[in-house]
């Protein structure tokens, strides 16, 4: 409930007044609010704020397809990043105050679709591609100065994807997917035979590499892409396999700041359902349960972080977006569905637009 009150207090009269009556009513109820990049059925892309009961609160148009959204609870600002190899990111006020601001990547760089705010919301960090050198970088933007790009540091790998901040508020975990791309080749993957994915811990204060972990060499085509942190400070990650389709390597694992990295053992059946593709990963409110989704395998799988055993799976057509609520997870799909899974009692709802890969809780 406290999240809800914080949201209402900050939303302000101006924002609520500008909403349609039904939507304003939605905000009066105690509901969680989520953000996701979407595709409109009639064409066009946007970022949308929706409630767990299925109300659309607001949306911001995007010039092209977006990917993930990051949010600062301190400032109420959310940023939606272009899907790679896109060059824009749109900052919007999740509380409805300020007008959206569009920032663009600098020449020679494009975004990878993910980023994170500093704990005080003053700096925004985004994974980027230095594509002439096939080098991953983190671009640093000053949120207090019009999102001016004030610097960058290395991700210590190629094709970085998600970046998250560890609970120490200082250390970044960065998933270097290992895949080389170049905008002159669209989304083509240029180094499948030599890809070298890794998970890097980087000091946010100076960009220093604290530690870097790789899976065994025979798993070099298992691309590490998305991460969450559990109650024991372990970084759980979901992978996508780029090797032969008939193989079914493990796709979910965890790493620690002490330098341990391992893949958990999922059964062949579970792996078949995941179709060599984990699109999103989320941790429960108590940080003891992990959920992974496969939009191509139409599956959402919940895992006990303690025992590393699956707790159950749900079929969801093109299901991908995952965000925790108090009891479980809210899941969204490429066909516009939203529903509660793994203990969540959020009702099933069908929207008239399609959700992209990620869902973020913003209130």
């Amino acid at each position, binding site marked *: 409930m406290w999240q809800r009150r914080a949201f209402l207090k900050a939303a302000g009269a101006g924002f609520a007044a500008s909403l349609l009556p039904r939507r304003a009513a939605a905000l009066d109820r105690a509901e969680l609010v989520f953000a996701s990049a979407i595709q409109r059925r009639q*064409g066009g892309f946007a970022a949308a704020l929706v409630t767990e009961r299925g109300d659309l609160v607001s949306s911001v148009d995007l010039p092209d397809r977006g990917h993930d959204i990051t949010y600062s609870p301190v400032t109420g600002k959310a940023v939606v990043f272009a899907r790679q190899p896109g060059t824009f990111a749109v900052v919007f006020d999740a509380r409805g105050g300020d007008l959206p601001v569009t920032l663009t990547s600098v020449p020679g760089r494009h975004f990878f679709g993910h980023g994170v705010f500093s704990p005080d919301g003053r700096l925004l960090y985004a994974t980027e591609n230095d594509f002439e050198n096939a080098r991953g970088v983190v671009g640093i933007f000053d949120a207090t100065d019009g999102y001016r790009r004030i610097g960058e540091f290395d991700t210590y790998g190629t094709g970085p994807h998600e970046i998250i901040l560890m609970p120490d508020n200082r250390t970044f975990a960065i998933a270097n997917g290992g895949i080389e791309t170049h905008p*002159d080749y669209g989304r083509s993957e240029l180094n499948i035979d030599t890809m070298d994915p890794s998970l890097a811990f980087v000091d946010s204060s100076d960009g220093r590499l604290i530690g870097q972990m790789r899976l065994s060499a025979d798993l070099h085509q298992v691309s590490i892409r998305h991460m969450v942190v559990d109650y024991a400070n372990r970084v759980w990650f979901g992978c996508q396999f780029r090797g032969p389709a008939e193989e079914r390597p493990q796709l979910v694992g965890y790493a620690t700041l002490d330098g341990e990295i391992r893949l958990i053992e999922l059964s062949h059946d579970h792996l078949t359902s995941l179709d060599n593709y984990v699109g999103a990963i989320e941790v429960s409110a108590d940080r003891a349960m992990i959920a992974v989704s496969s939009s191509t395998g139409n599956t959402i799988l919940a895992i006990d972080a303690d025992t590393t055993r699956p707790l159950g799976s749900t079929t969801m057509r093109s299901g991908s977006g995952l965000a925790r609520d108090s009891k479980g997870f809210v899941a969204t*799909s490429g066909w516009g569905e939203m529903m509660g899974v793994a203990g969540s009692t959020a009702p099933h709802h069908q929207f008239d637009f399609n959700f992209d890969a990620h869902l973020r809780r913003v209130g």
Partner: protein
Amino acid sequence: MRLFLAAAFALATTPVLAQAPVTTGEVISAAIEDFIRPGFHELATSAASMKDGIAALCATPSEEHLSVGRDGFKAVVLAYSGVEFVHVGPLGSNNRIERMLFWPDRKGIALKQVQQALAAEDASATNPKDLAGKSVAMQGLGALEYLLFGTGAEELAGPDGAYRCSFAASIAALIGEVTAEMDAEWSDPQGISAALENPRPDANDYRTQTEVLEKLAASLVHGTEAIRDQRVLPILGTSAGQPKPKSALFWRSGMTVPALAANFSGLSDFFAKARFPEVMGADNAWIANGAEFEFANAKRALAVITSPMDEAVADPKQFKALEYLVIVTKSLDTLVGEDLSAALGLSVGFSALDGD
């Protein structure tokens, strides 16, 4: 009046055909029997003929034999371009995609390795068995094109080209082998066809007919995406604002545009022969009509590009035609990707398509 009646009749016949009930199983069978099998058979046949042609060139070097060898290569390029999007099954396993064609090759790895072998007269490259164990970049159509059409290729018509010719013959033999394997695997009634036509819940690969239909439908959109991302965008060179004609696939043999045309016509044939327009039903005729419209647009745009690539990119009209292909492929992505999926109730939904 007669004209009017004829037109009305012609219009009336289309929906009747479109209403013929087609099942998912029939789509799968039609895809295999009417498109995939004949396509891979033609590829194997043309590759066998190319192998013979290059062997004859090596045995008796001459201008005439060189020209036969080159024509054989062009025929294989066309046959392969027509089916290369069918990653389901044999082509998608055993690194065959890369062994057939190492592409995209942004750093020119194939060229470097082939030139090194030529300079050193590396004997192992002339033996198909040894070559199969070397870099895939040296084994496929890209490497073979350089040997047949690249700098120094004219020496193939005489005795000085002996090493170069035996390297080319070795590649042709490997391509012959790989394409024959794929042809045999597709023809085997107990093999991949059975797995696709009779999916089982306990199967390792294909568990339901819907899943098979999804994979077949996804080939279409992966095909249009590959045309754009791997064939057209590299030529446009947008990131540096400078066209890169030498980033075109098959520019040395002048096969860039014919290969693109075969890519599009392969996709268009597959779409029709697998009976996608029928299975979507009359209500969704707009999707099939839209796809046909865009395939025709692609054909028209390609007909405009008549010069060698380095000249074509310098001519605003031809360059615009290349740029237009980007728009056409994006429109096709939507039609044969999302719209077709929605019409068939497939899960190849928005977030499942080329996710991150």
